[in-house]
């Protein structure tokens, strides 16, 4: 006898699980269906298949430049966040020092701050210091909010890496940098990649903070938000939505598979 669930209980929970999954994916399927629909207003009945909206968004320069801006912001800010994350994670995992609690509380605190508060706080900082808003002000904000995620991903992996490997390299004459580059970093790499992807996707999708500190060059979420408030070219936006959601689902799944494969391999070696 199973102590946690009866047969019927398991069946009911399975059905419930399936129901929730349908609820979670149905809106995405709705977008998919209407991205191929001819009518300019998404409504039933369906009025025929078209690829028009995909063609149209591919020639929408405003939209494309916002995607490019977001890609640049995400690429830079995630490199920054991962770099700071690696430094923080090494300090927190490999060293014992006074005030560990306070430091890790500070490093993780951006996780709980309401983005509306952080966004306007940054706005006031840049205003007070006389720094004009640009994509770099967005990058600065995104590094702050993604840093805790990178630390949370890197720390557990770093804890698993055997210190004696680093000691061995050091004893054999490798310097600090050499030890880090040829021992620690390769072992940490799966987590670095996960951290980078999480930081990248978070930044790429971030609207709340960006809305306060963005300059004239709109990021993709900023463009999207404006398009959502005044839905004159809704079908186009739906087509973009389908592309972006598909890519992010693909990346999420690929990253997860990659991480498992890499960790299994490294686990076998260790």
């Amino acid at each position: 006898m199973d102590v946690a669930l009866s047969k019927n209980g398991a069946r009911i929970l399975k059905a419930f699980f399936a129901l929730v999954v349908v609820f979670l994916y149905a809106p995405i399927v709705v977008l998919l269906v209407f991205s191929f629909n001819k009518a300019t207003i998404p409504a039933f009945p369906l009025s025929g298949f078209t690829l028009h909206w995909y063609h149209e968004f591919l020639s929408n320069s405003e939209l494309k430049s916002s995607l490019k801006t977001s890609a640049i912001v995400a690429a830079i800010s995630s490199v920054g966040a991962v770099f700071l994350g690696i430094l923080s994670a090494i300090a927190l995992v490999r060293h014992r020092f006074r005030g560990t609690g306070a430091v890790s509380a500070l490093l993780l605190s951006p996780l709980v701050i309401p983005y509306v508060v952080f966004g306007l706080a940054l706005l006031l900082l840049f205003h007070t210091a006389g720094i004009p808003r640009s994509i770099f002000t967005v990058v600065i904000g995104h590094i702050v909010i993604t840093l805790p995620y990178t630390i949370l991903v890197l720390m557990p992996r770093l804890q698993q890496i055997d210190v004696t490997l680093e000691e061995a390299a050091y004893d054999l004459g490798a310097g600090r940098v050499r030890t880090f580059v040829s021992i620690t970093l390769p072992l940490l790499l799966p987590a670095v990649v996960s951290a980078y992807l999480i930081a990248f996707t978070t930044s790429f999708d971030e609207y709340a903070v960006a809305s306060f500190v963005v300059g004239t060059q709109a990021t993709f979420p900023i463009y999207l938000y404006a398009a959502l408030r005044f839905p004159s070219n809704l079908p186009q936006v739906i087509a973009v939505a389908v592309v972006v959601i598909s890519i992010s689902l693909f990346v999420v799944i690929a990253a997860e598979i990659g991480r498992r494969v890499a960790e299994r391999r490294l686990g076998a070696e260790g």
Partner: protein
Amino acid sequence: MAVEARTEQLAEPRPRRRRYRPSMSVPGLLGLPVAWLAVFFLVPIGIVAGYSVNLLSFGSVFGPASHGFTLQAWHDFLHSGVYLRLFWKSVKMSLLVSIAIVVLAYPLAYYLALSGTKRKYVLLLLLIAPFLTSYLLRVLAWKVILGDNGVLNSFFFWTGLRSPEHPFSQLLYSRFAVMLVLGYIWLPFVALPIFVSLESLDRGLLEAASDLGASRLTAFRKVTLPLSLPGVVAAFLFVFIPTIGEFVTPSLVGGANGYMYGNQIVDLFETGFPDWQTGSVLAIFLLGVVVLLTLVFSRFLQPRQVTAG
């Protein structure tokens, strides 16, 4: 540092270990991250606090100059009642959403952790994946679905279940829409901490309960539920904390009815008559509540709850 290391080395029975210093010193490692957060996180919050008590004001360069310390804006905030009522409304909406989805997510996490299914990580990924796709685009989907002439209504007209003269109005631009969308967005994420706490549950305890004559329900009430409570509290806070200050979803699907405290803060900074001082008071108050919640429940907010799996 060097002297300290040397004395430790002498005290240590295995000196070889102590010689090993492959990474930089703590200040070298933490200097940059801590400085970054000090300058771009703590100082900005200090500036907001400064604005809220008029040490800084709109248009000033650094320095208090002609601006004097006053708690007037705080006094007005606490006595007018308008903003506090709005705050309370947002708290109620956010509470309702958080409780509802924790209740919905619990059986999902229970199924994944305890049904013995072999594909639990695949199913977990299936559940979480939507959370990792674009937030705004998921809001967009509901806007398309819920509108008066949207997918849902037009489906009912088309199939004749409802006449076009009588659409289900109030679906979009309502408090209901805001709560539905917030629930939709956060549901996958909430399952995670609950899953982690159930996953780490020792099944031996359930077997012991069963051997001692407890029914499954009793075992659940006396063993599983209490042991998974930290995960439940964490899940609740992970949704409740970010949704109290929510302003994006209400501004897209909320209309006047779904207006939340976060929208008020944005409006005080961005509309035709900006009032940065009052806006800063609202922001610091919200931050204070969130910090208080975090401190009170900090023992439930373990980072490992979102990293496992």
